[in-house]
């Protein structure tokens, strides 16, 4: 016994002192020794991990089954969330300032360029991973009963991801943004019935869906503010809620697997 104590020495006693303290125990409520009980508690007693089941069928661990695509998509969303909040400290969604704010991010502000680059490239990455996540779920037939409705939620998340990326596209207020959003929103003119140039139009250009989207007949200051609010509040909230339901349903139905 005393021999063992000597071998571990000071550091061992130091660690024991910390993990044995009442403060440590108030945070971590179970031991870390490799027992079934601890491995279960590691998941269930942790808020961030408890969306996982305690145990899973072996095939679900294989990377070549899921390719981690859903998880990666969510992780990129978190990256977008964090970088997006930091960008909001430097960006004003007003025509007079928007472009210069982005310009100064790229030139003046410490780490501004990498912050914006990560947000921009992360948005592209998220669109790619969410599309390929859908491909994976299709190819494995994972939308078969009882998971049909979770596929529907997934489609809504895909659309929201595209809308998030699209609404962010306008914010730098440069030629690329202006041209891209003009082209995109011009499509709304052609909506049947509700677009002023669409078939069977029943509204003029001051009352059609494009006007609602842009808050005017052209891409202007009101559109910039609308896209900003959609981009930083409304759409992320929708994504968070839908993603929460998406994960919860996977948890309830279990991950798909061979019969």
């Amino acid at each position: 016994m005393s021999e063992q104590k000597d071998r571990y020495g000071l550091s061992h006693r130091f660690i024991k002192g910390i993990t044995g303290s009442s403060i440590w125990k108030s945070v971590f409520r179970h031991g870390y020794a490799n027992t079934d009980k601890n491995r279960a508690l590691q998941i269930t007693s942790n808020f961030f991990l408890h969306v996982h089941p305690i145990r899973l069928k072996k095939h679900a661990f294989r990377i070549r089954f899921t390719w981690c695509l859903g998880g990666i998509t969510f992780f990129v969303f978190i990256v977008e969330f964090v970088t997006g909040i930091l960008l909001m400290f430097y960006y004003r969604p007003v025509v007079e300032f928007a472009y210069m704010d982005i310009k100064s991010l790229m030139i003046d502000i410490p780490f501004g360029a990498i912050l914006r680059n990560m947000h921009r490239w992360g948005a592209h990455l998220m669109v790619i991973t969410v599309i390929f996540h859908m491909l994976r779920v299709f190819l494995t037939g994972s939308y078969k009963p009882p998971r049909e409705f979770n596929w529907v939620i997934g489609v809504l998340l895909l659309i929201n991801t595209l809308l998030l990326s699209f609404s962010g596209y306008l914010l730098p207020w440069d030629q690329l943004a202006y041209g891209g959003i003009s082209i995109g929103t011009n499509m709304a003119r052609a909506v049947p019935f509700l677009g002023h140039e669409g078939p069977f139009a029943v509204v003029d250009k001051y009352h059609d869906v494009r006007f609602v989207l842009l808050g005017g007949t052209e891409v202007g200051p009101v559109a910039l503010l609308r896209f900003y609010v959609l981009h930083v509040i409304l759409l992320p909230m929708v994504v968070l809620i839908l993603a929460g339901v998406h994960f919860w349903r996977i948890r309830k139905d279990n991950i798909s697997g061979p019969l």
Partner: protein
Amino acid sequence: MENDNKVVEKGKSATDKEFVWPDLVFKELLASVGVVVLLVVWSLLVDAPLRPEADPAWTENPAKAPWYFLGLQEMLVYFDPWLAGVVVPGLIVAGLIFIPYLDINNPISGEYRLGKRKMATLLFLFGFIMWFVLIFVGAFLRGPSWYFYWPWESWAVVKHSNEVLWSFHWLAGVVFLGLFFIGGTFLSIVIGKGFVQRLGRTRSLIIIFLALSMFFIPVKIALRLLFNVKYVLRTPFFNI
């Protein structure tokens, strides 16, 4: 009763299950680290684009939508905006949402067994690949005024179009669309032996309609590129 079943199932499959901690959580951590490394390196090497400030009086030529919508923009060459920008994306979204309720042919789930789901896989991959082919053309092969430019051609060379487009007579258009959609439906029912019985009439008809609509896109593209057809059907209200 539901709970009872769960207990039995748990006891039965207890052997082929594995603890999530730490194996799966560790893989998730590795994936996250990989994504962070990728994004940081990418962001250090390549700056996000920032062109001159927006100027409503001056538009870029070509003005391109974000890449994931370029497939739709590319379709504007072949279809009016209400089709390319509204009906086609609407059908894509509706079709995607319907998939689990239409594809009830067999319960194979949770593994890659494409050979057992040939029709579903073929239809999905056809749309998936077409989406990316159109994006590729829109992103890399379209230059000023949306003219076709090979990657090695300079955009400085101004292109002009001297092709004269023509449209079907409205009667011919009705016959053509009727043949394509109604004839195509009967043909699918005859060729796909017994799948109407397996899936039910409503499901089969929705699948056939969505598939024919999807196939109509390359058909129209071919008519345009090979025979300079502008519209298959002209009416005073809309053109297809």
